[in-house]
Each structure stands twice: as C-alpha cells, then as structure tokens.
C-alpha cells in the first residue's frame, strides 16, 4: 500500500525533507509525493535516487506533479 506525502505549496527544500523522512521511516515500499513545481519534482527525484529508490512514475496534473517512488 502506498503512502502519500503532500508537499504541494511548499518550496524547496521542504518537499525533499518530507520525502527523505518518509523514506527513512519506511525503509522500503512505495511513496506517492505531490509537488507543484518543476524544481521540486527534480529535487525530490534526485533525493530519492540518492537513497537508492526508483522513480517509478511522474504524472503531470493541474496542480503540479505526482511522483511515485519505490524500493523493493
């Protein structure tokens, strides 16, 4: 089951820090992160990859982006 991190409306580095906290808490699994800027999307993706999580999906929507990251 996925966990959702809603970082919409927050500026960097907060979306990254929220994602990292969730990554550390879970260790593995699937996290869905909502962000609203290109910069946050890039920074969250980079942070996830630096922790050996895969960016499985990025969807653009009206309010920004929804990223799905995974680690098995």
């Amino acid at each position: 089951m996925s966990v959702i991190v809603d970082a919409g409306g927050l500026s960097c580095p907060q979306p990254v820090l929220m994602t990292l906290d969730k990554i550390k808490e879970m260790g593995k699994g699937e996290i869905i992160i909502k962000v609203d800027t290109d910069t946050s999307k890039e920074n969250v993706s980079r942070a996830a990859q630096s922790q050996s999580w895969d960016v499985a999906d990025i969807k653009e929507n009206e309010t920004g982006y929804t990223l799905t990251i995974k680690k098995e």
Partner: protein
Amino acid sequence: MSFFKRLTSRKKKTETSCKADRGILVFEHTSEVIKAESILKKAGWNIRVMGPPPEIRSGCDLVIEIPLIEKLNILRTLENIGTSPMEIVPVSSPLLQPVDLFQNKDFGKYLMIRAANMKLTVEKETQTIVNISGGGCPDVPYLASKMVGMSLNEAPSPREIGHTLCGYALQLAYEEMKRR
C-alpha cells in the same frame, strides 16, 4: 622563500590593505571569474570577487578587485592558465558585494544555508547534502546531480565544477556550511 620574494609578498599585502589604486578585472564569463579567483588566491594574491560599479554593470556580472600596482604580475599569472580579462578598469566608485547575506533555516534534523539565490541543505547527523536548489542558472541541475547524496567532505567543490553566478553563490553556502 628568498629575501626578494619575502620583500615582494610583504609589499603585496601592504598595497592591498591600504586599498590604494584599486582596479577591477572584467571577464567575459562568470566561469572565468571563478577560475581566475581560484588561481589568484592559490598564488597568494589578496583579491576579492565583487559586483562591478553600477556604471559598468550589465546584469549578474562579477569582477575581481586587485591592487593595480600588481596588475602585470596578476595578468602574467592568469596568462599562464590561458585566461585573460576583457578589461582592466581603475575603480572610481564603490564596488558592490556580490553576495553579502547568508540566511540559515533549521529544520531540526536538517540545516539549510542560503547564499544569495542558492540554497544548500545538509542532514546534520551525517553531514550529507540532501538538497541544492535555487538559482535558475543552467548548471544548477548538474551541480545538484554531482553533490546531492554525498557528504560535505566528499562532495566536489562548486568552485571547481560550477560555471555561473549560481555556482559561485553555492560555493559560498558550501564554505559557510563547512565552517559550521
């Protein structure tokens, strides 16, 4: 060090400290300023990176302030590394500090330092760089890709791998973070 070298290095400090006859080196690209600053500081010159006076300012420029009396020696040092300024201008009005303001934000486990338009965030416990953002310069994604996930001590210095004013600002944030 020979007697002659000691004499000239003492003279260098005296001339700089009294700020007589200052001049600025104007380069075509910020990356050249960053490179020249690194080389001149390594060579022992007391120089500073500054913003140019308003009358010659054309955007986000940086210049290097030098003691004019040492112009020829400094130019020779730069020629040796294949870099030459476009212009050497005597300073007749105040220079602007390119970055004179640091801001910190403590997120508990993480510390962010902002220098001008660049933000560097580090996990306090491990000293790992967790985020680099800000700027809008083309080399920011590259800088982030090279530095995020590495510890402050392992990460390459932005001065070495950056090419823009953002790289320069990130270097200041990086030095300030290391100093803490």
